[in-house]
């Protein structure tokens, strides 16, 4: 079976899932007669299938050899997101669906205009500077927006709160991949051993340290721990793949430890998060800063093995007070566990795992180092983003607000992740094209 036929086959379960999900939400609301029910959910399923088919036909023409599993996996993630957000609020779901359409257009545009993605290498310093500038923007007056102590968004009146970190992550990965492609050999060859630890030559390592330092500084400025973990993790993953030297990763982890310790003890809103993380169910905090994480844990426990079913989770107290704050963005994972149980949540995580596996597979197949490093970087940053938010919601690490890719409500997240998908497919098409 050819790659594209496989992809087509993979889209069928995705649309079945949308149909089943919407039907279940309608039933739970109990407001519709049976005919309406089957018609409406079938319509949603068909529209979803139509959009996916459109994108599929585009891929058939533009990237015939690209990995067949990446797109269906994303379609399944999108289906989780749409059904869950629809279950929370119709209007949000409609907006989310619009963002998906815009996202697919941006996806197509990326593939058309970046056919030769290796020309990105020529603009690496521009891309790096633009990404750092993007990270700065939310701190500017008027357009900047502060949410829960972190400066994460830019207000574009009437349209959205734009989250620059989502796009900055792509830019930084592209820069690191292209810079490491050139210098990875010198980093290894010029390395000296000091006190039993292999140190890279400063001349070639300094630019990397500089970009990392700037990103860290900016993150202290915008006060977001989750994104810094994401950026730094991707940096270390790329460094390791590029040089095959574990000592570099070790030094990096040490530096990160120092940075995290500083943030955790000196920046008040991070200190709060760390305290809540260490003792999430403390009754003294339940009323204020511990409310979100404690209720997230309760909701997940309430899901049990198979969950409450779509629409079955309790979202508000009888007097209309929200039980799960930020349930359509940060805490959507807790809601999914509540409604689909451990089994459904594990499936969602496997979907992410398989997406990342396809990314690494693409990196292995790639024939030049820039492509390899780019695919590794994109897969790593994607995996770390899932880790940061799922880890936060399940109280493995302190909770910080990043989105669950393709599932959480939010325009910038969907757009940026569609660009990420487009880049991975471009690398994959080039790698799998028969010589």
């Amino acid at each position, binding site marked *: 079976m050819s790659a594209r036929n496989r992809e087509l086959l*993979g889209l069928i379960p995705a649309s079945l899932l949308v149909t089943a999900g919407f039907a*279940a939400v309608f039933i739970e609301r109990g407001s519709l007669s049976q005919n309406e029910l089957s018609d409406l959910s079938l319509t949603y399923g068909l529209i979803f299938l139509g959009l996916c088919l459109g994108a599929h036909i585009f891929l058939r023409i533009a990237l015939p050899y690209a990995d067949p599993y990446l797109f269906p996996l994303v379609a399944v993630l999108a289906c989780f997101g749409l059904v869950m957000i629809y279950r929370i609020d119709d209007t949000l779901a409609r907006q989310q669906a619009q963002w998906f359409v815009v996202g697919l257009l941006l996806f197509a545009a990326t593939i058309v205009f970046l056919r030769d993605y290796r020309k990105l290498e020529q603009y690496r310093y521009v891309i790096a500077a633009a990404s750092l500038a993007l990270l700065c923007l939310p701190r500017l007056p008027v357009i900047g927006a502060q949410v829960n102590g972190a400066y994460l968004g830019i207000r574009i009146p009437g349209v959205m709160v734009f989250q620059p970190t989502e796009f900055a992550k792509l830019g930084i990965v592209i820069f690191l991949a292209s810079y490491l492609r050139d210098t990875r050999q010198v980093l*290894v060859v010029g390395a000296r051993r000091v006190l039993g630890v292999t140190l890279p030559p400063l001349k070639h390592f300094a630019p990397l340290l500089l970009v990392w330092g700037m990103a860290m500084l900016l993150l202290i400025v915008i006060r977001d721990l989750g994104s810094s973990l994401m950026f730094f993790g991707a940096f270390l993953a790329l460094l390791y793949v590029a040089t*095959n030297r574990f000592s570099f990763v070790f030094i990096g982890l040490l530096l990160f430890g120092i940075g995290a310790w500083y943030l955790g003890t000196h920046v008040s809103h991070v200190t709060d998060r760390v305290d809540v993380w260490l003792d999430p169910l403390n009754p003294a905090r339940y009323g204020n800063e511990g409310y979100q994480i404690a209720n997230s844990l309760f909701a997940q426990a309430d899901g049990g093995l198979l969950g409450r079913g*779509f629409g079955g989770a309790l979202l508000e107290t009888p007097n209309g007070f929200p039980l799960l704050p930020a349930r359509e963005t940060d805490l959507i994972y807790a809601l999914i566990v509540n409604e*689909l149980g451990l089994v*459904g949540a594990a499936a969602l995580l496997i979907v992410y795992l*398989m997406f990342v*596996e396809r990314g690494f597979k693409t990196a292995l197949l790639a024939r030049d180092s820039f492509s390899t490093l780019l695919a590794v970087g994109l897969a790593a940053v994607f995996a770390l983003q899932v880790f940061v938010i799922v880890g936060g919601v399940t109280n493995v690490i302190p909770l910080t607000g990043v989105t669950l890719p393709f599932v959480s409500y939010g325009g910038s997240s969907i757009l940026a992740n569609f660009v990420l998908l487009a880049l991975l497919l471009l690398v994959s098409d080039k790698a799998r094209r028969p010589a």
Partner: protein
Amino acid sequence: MNLEPVSVALKLGFLVVLYLFLLWVVRSALKDLRRAQPSADAAYVEEAPPADATAMHSAADDMLGDHVGGGEPRLVVEHAAGHPDGIAYDLSSGATLGRGNVEIRLEDPFASSQHARIERQGGVLVLEDLGSTNGTFLNEEQLRGIQPLHHGDRIRIGDSEFSYLQD
């Protein structure tokens, strides 16, 4: 009408379809892993070339490669980690390239321990990939089987590039 059984059935149906889909994707990943196994082993097991290879090429080497004749065959480093650019290695008795304990050592993470071999067959020098994981490229084309070398050929392994000269 009571719709609760339908609702439960839909939830279970959702999970079943989801897991079937995942099974399908995971199966492909497993297939990849199994396929990768033999080639990874091959990279470390150096085998003698197939018995017919020598015969086939020595019979036709007039058309296949440049005769070494009185020339001095050598491999010139274009750029390769651990080797100064422009340095030349004498090839008159052949050489093996790789990351392991071989004549021309590559500090390239894309190179296998015994990556490729250049040896004299009849009057010409031939290049052979020793079952490397990432392949050997002769003039930017992936090497298949044994290929004779011509003056000016470019050999690339991972990010290390060499050119072959014999004058």
